């Protein structure tokens, strides 16, 4: 197990290097002098000179990259032009909102997506299946922000059940009750992703249902419902689990929009605002954090897969 983990981590290294290089080069691709890209227009000559030395701009690009990587490893992601604060702390300020939003959304996705997929598959071709499959395709076609706006219109502005925007930290006044600020955003964010999980669960359930061992299980005299849960679902779960890395990426993507619609102080909105403020060091930092998170999640998905599938476990 440990050797496997070590091997997997070693395999991640090249991907991590290439990805971080892309993130690094991003600053240099933005039109203009990278120094001013990183410092903004109001930089003093002293600041410019200091940064020029720090980045090693007179050196070859790979050396610059190595210098940058060295700083990143030590937790120095640069300085935000807008906040005039370290990028890492700016990102961490938004982390609570984004992590909670993503977690609650994941709960919705699992709670709604997987069971509806199973029901749809077991009732293949009936009106129940058509209703759920059609619904899943509909929600996969709805722009998140549009759904979010209507959730606000109905449940916040209309019925007044939920707050319409913002999110005070759970560590401030209100405590855990502040999570209600995240209910509507997480639902809007969950809808398209849960829809994809419904479709995926359904498809892989139907795939597995054609397998010979399902017929064996039925031949034993086990009731079809039990076969679905014990034999079909356990195998179909493999495909669903391996899709969770992808789901995470899709989630982050749409969180950018959702956080903007609901004015949540998270990392997604930070990206959009930083683009509008030309606060490039922050954008670069967020990209790096997200790519690293993605690779970590993929690693976790891999481990879960190994745990679920004995065929992989022992090789």
């Amino acid at each position: 197990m440990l050797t496997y983990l070590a091997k997997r981590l070693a395999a991640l290294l090249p991907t991590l290097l290439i990805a971080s290089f892309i993130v690094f080069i991003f600053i240099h691709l933005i039109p203009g002098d990278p120094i001013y890209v990183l410092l903004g227009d109001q930089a003093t000559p002293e600041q410019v000179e200091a940064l020029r030395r720090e980045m090693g701009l007179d050196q070859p690009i790979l050396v610059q990259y190595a210098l940058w990587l060295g700083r990143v490893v030590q937790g120095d992601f640069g300085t935000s032009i807008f906040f005039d604060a370290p990028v890492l702390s700016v990102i961490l300020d938004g982390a609570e909102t984004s992590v909670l939003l993503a977690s609650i959304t994941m709960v919705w996705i699992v709670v709604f997506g997987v069971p509806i997929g199973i029901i749809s598959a077991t009732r293949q071709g009936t009106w129940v299946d058509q209703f759920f499959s059609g619904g899943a395709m509909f929600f996969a076609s709805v722009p998140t922000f549009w759904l979010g706006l209507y959730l606000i219109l109905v449940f916040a502005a209309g019925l007044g059940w939920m707050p319409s925007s913002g999110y005070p930290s759970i560590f401030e006044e209100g405590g855990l009750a502040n999570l209600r600020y995240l209910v509507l955003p997480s639902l809007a964010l969950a809808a398209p992703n849960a829809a994809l999980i419904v479709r995926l669960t359904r498809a892989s359930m139907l795939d597995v249902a054609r397998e010979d061992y399902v017929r064996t299980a039925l031949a034993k005299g086990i009731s079809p419902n039990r076969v679905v849960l014990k034999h079909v679902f356990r195998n179909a779960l493999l495909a669903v689990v391996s899709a969770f890395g992808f789901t995470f990426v899709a989630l982050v993507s749409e969180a950018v929009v959702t956080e903007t619609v609901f004015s949540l102080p998270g990392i997604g909105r930070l990206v959009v605002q930083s683009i509008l403020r030309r606060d490039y060091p922050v954008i670069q930092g967020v990209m790096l954090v997200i790519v690293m998170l993605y690779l970590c999640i993929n690693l976790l998905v891999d481990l879960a897969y190994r745990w679920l599938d004995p065929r992989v476990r022992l090789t």
Partner: protein
Amino acid sequence: MRSTLVFWLKPFLARRISLFGLCVLAVIVLAALFAPWIAPYDPLSYDPIARLSPPGPEHLFGTDHYGRDTFSRVVYGARLALMIGLGVVGVALTFGVPIGIVSALFPRVGLVLMRGVDVLMAFPALLLALGLIVILGRGIENAILAVGVVYLTTTVRIVYGVSLKLREEVFVEAAVSLGAGALRIIFRHILPNLVSPLLVQASFVFAFAQLQAASLDFLGLGAPPEIPSWGNALSESRIYITRAPWLLIFPGMMIVLTAFSLNLVGDALRDRLDPRFRDTFASGKKG
């Protein structure tokens, strides 16, 4: 020829919902082509007196905060939607197909290229598009390019997968042993077999491109604000959502309908082309 037509139409005739998708797409294409004749007003002309008027005989879908006719803007929006869809599919195919084929035929190059594609896939779609917009600047062409690059990755994956399988198939090996050149193999054996999976992929990419482009517009980083795209319409009207909800219903519904129809059509095509799905389809209908 007739049998080919029957082959393609069958899944649409068998499932009325797919036919619905096809019809919606036809309407959108017609709206885009004949926008100047269909739209009763100039989508850009202001009418301060008729600001935020609700849907009625005068203005079918109402007007926005500048008094612009929403119906006309929605009709012209179809042009943008088609342009973005075709553009993104175009970018994804023009770059995706050669990269995928070359990677499959030349494993050494492929190793490098596919690793690059893997890395790109680690970036969330919208974030990658936003990054590219930051580099390229705002604008319709750049939005198309940025979203196109995002879906390039999935296209390369599909082309690579199919080509790799074909390369190992007997007939391609036979062609190689007979001394066929790489180009001949690509054009005679690989490209024809790519048509069907790419057709399915194109309809899904077309659908997702609508959503991504709308998101960019909404964030104010897509098409310039004066362009009557559906995403811009939503972006500008969001503050009027309580006072004039119709401003959001119609353009939003258009985005949903377009993406939904494309997904339906893509599903129907896949059922027709993927023998595995075809089996379920047949048994589901008859069983």
